[in-house]
């Protein structure tokens, strides 16, 4: 749609514009929404559906990423399971992933801040680090490719993607009760099936009246893109459970790495503001030092006292590591972080939420709109991908039976398939977060014992890897 036309609409709001009607209206151009659009168009059964995708933000960075790839790594990076990658391969989008910007890794070393317990999970390519924008871009490229392959004119292709357009209101059509979505451009779209891929605050979920339960963790996830002292030799993820929340350092190609550090509200704000040299030192400290040291640093930094802090951190790190041989250092601690990508620090509130249902009459929710989880297990986006896979399957079946795809009978198998699995994962992650927030000594002793015990049972470990990597 031309800009001039949009403006004309905006100024002429009083004139009721024509209502467009589609089969599927997807709200949200995040990973979940784009995957749904691409998979529906990729399926021989659903490819003729008329689909509209609406995204509130500007998708230019996503659209440009493939041809004008930025030099630096972005700070939103997720860990994809083999199962998710497998699904994206089937969708045909994985080949558009910029392969030189992703990093598979073979092990994750988990330690804790109050004891020396350690557990190591090893599995060839257990997960792959990919920037969110790389995923979105690959899906966008796949949608473009499908459009070309269809040899239809773009209006007839049947997947219209619009960004910079917000959903303002959702109502019901008076005659047939279909959802009608009112956009910030003044347009209205009536749809047979409305899919909320619109994230945690999902306007679609609110409209549908589906309850969502959960709570804020009172923690923020601080992210950043970092450089390590050397290119990594063995790609591994590192995670340490500190009483304030877990810190994770995950590999990107060469000497790059990405950080997710769950922190208290106060500390997270401080971490995004402090001098980057101190920030780097603090990350290194967090993987090595004891709680008492970290608490001292937080206290000083929250008071704005930074004098001598870096020297102090380095003294403590040296003191704590001097007893190890080089080999032991390599086994027990990640490589040192030496610098940070400018302006890559950001923080996100962490929460748990789960919608009571993912479907109702002409409504389906996927991804974060249906559930959000603590990032400590790196599962949020992966869960959304599995949602999409399952929802597409349900729609395919419904169409094969000649049913209306907005019919709850078509949609409910999706919910029945995904809800229990997501619920289990949300619960386990929540319990883990709580277990590791505890400082009480007997509990620390018990959980360290538990962790060490699990570490020595390879059968159980393989089972756990299987669960989280979807193998």
């Amino acid at each position: 749609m031309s800009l001039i036309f949009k403006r004309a609409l905006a100024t002429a709001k009083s004139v009721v514009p024509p209502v467009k009607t589609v089969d599927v209206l997807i709200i949200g151009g995040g990973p979940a929404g784009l995957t749904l659009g691409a998979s529906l168009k990729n399926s021989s059964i659903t490819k003729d559906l008329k689909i509209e995708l609406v995204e509130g933000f500007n998708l230019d960075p996503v659209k440009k990423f493939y041809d004008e790839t930025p030099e630096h790594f972005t700070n939103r990076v997720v860990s994809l399971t083999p199962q998710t990658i497998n699904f994206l391969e089937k969708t045909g989008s994985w080949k558009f992933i910029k392969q030189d910007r992703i990093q598979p890794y073979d092990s994750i070393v988990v330690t804790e801040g109050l004891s020396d317990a350690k557990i190591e999970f090893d599995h060839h390519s257990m997960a792959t680090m990919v920037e969110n924008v790389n995923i979105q871009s690959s899906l966008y490229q796949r949608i473009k490719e499908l459009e070309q392959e269809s040899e239809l004119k773009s209006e007839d292709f049947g997947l219209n993607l619009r960004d910079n357009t917000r959903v303002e209101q959702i109502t019901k059509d008076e005659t047939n009760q279909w959802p009608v979505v009112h956009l910030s451009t003044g347009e209205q779209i009536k749809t047979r099936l409305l899919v909320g891929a619109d994230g945690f605050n999902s306007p679609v979920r609110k409209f549908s009246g589906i309850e969502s339960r959960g709570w804020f963790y009172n923690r923020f996830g601080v992210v950043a893109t970092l450089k390590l002292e050397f290119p990594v030799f063995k790609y591994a993820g590192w995670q340490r459970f500190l009483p304030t929340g877990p810190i994770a350092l995950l590999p990107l190609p060469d000497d790059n790495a990405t950080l997710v550090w769950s922190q208290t509200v106060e500390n997270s704000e401080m971490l995004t503001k402090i001098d980057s040299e101190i920030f780097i030192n603090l990350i290194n400290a967090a993987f090595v030092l004891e709680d008492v040291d970290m608490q001292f640093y937080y206290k000083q930094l929250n008071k704005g006292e930074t004098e001598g802090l870096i020297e102090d951190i380095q003294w403590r790190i040296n003191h704590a590591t001097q007893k190890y041989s080089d080999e032991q250092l390599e086994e027990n601690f990640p490589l040192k972080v030496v610098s940070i990508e400018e302006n890559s620090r950001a923080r996100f509130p962490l929460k748990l939420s789960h919608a009571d249902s993912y479907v109702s009459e002409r409504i389906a929710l996927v991804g974060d709109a249906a559930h959000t989880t603590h990032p400590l297990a790196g599962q949020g986006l992966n869960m959304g991908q599995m949602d999409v896979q399952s929802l597409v399957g349900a729609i395919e079946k419904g169409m094969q039976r000649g049913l209306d795809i907005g019919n709850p009978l078509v949609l409910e198998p999706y919910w029945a398939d995904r809800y229990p699995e997501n619920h289990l994962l949300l619960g386990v992650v929540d319990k883990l977060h709580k277990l590791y927030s505890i400082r009480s000594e007997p509990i620390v002793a018990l959980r360290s014992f538990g962790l060490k015990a699990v570490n020595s049972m390879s059968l159980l470990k393989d089972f756990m890897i299987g669960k989280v990597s979807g193998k």
Partner: protein
Amino acid sequence: MLSRHIPNVTQVSTTISKRTFIISTLATLTNSQYFKNIQLADEIEDIHNKLPFPQMDEFIQQAREPLHEDRKFPDGRIKLNSLEQSSIFLISGISALLNPANGTHINNFGEVSSFEFVLKNLRDQMLQTSTGRSILRERPLMNNETLDPEWLKTLPENSLGFQYLKFTEDGDSRAPVKLIQDEELAYVFLRYRQTHDIVHILTKSKIDLAGELPVKAFEFGNTGLPMTGLACFAWFKLSDKRKARINMFDSFLNGLQSKPFIGVKWEDFMEWDVEDVRKELGVIPQN
């Protein structure tokens, strides 16, 4: 030195029956005569004379040889395995009880009874403040070289420095730490030891038994070191008249509610009036 020969105790205890050895040791321990003589080799020789084991000759021979260098840390502390630590705990504990006047037993027992978690707790108190951290980092010692007597002499009479000088004039320098295995925790213990005289000054306690007891109670409250707590039991040995004069519980509470002494940079307080130091740290002087 007693401690130097200790490691070999277990060497022998593995060759002879461990049980017999301990029983025979305990049997002889009751005769406090042995502990006037702090050479463990002599002690063992005495045991040997009473309960001869052929393997003993060899052991005593070994025990008299200087300690092997690889049984020592670079700073002179002695490497001990846990069995050796328990042996020393037992022997020095009983010896110290039987003969409280002998400083070596008390020192050894103080060290081996300061279990890692207790010392870590003390160290963590230091790590919570900037001053505490700087002490741990610089590891200052309190002795004639670092606290120049000539300088202390020039301070006013009621200053901490001058009082400290008066207390340490007779050359009561504090023994180095020998038996604590972790080098940082060894320093923490040394710092505690070097603070002892200051506790006397701040609590206005003399160095006789009547003064030593409330100091121990204070230190127990302030540091939680087991040895200071055990030492308090000596109170029961006092006559009723003296018991009535010494209120151990008050001293304990005093130590508990005062700021942790382990994290105080005494070196910076030398010029302060003792009364002000007490106020700063929340110490109520006894008597």
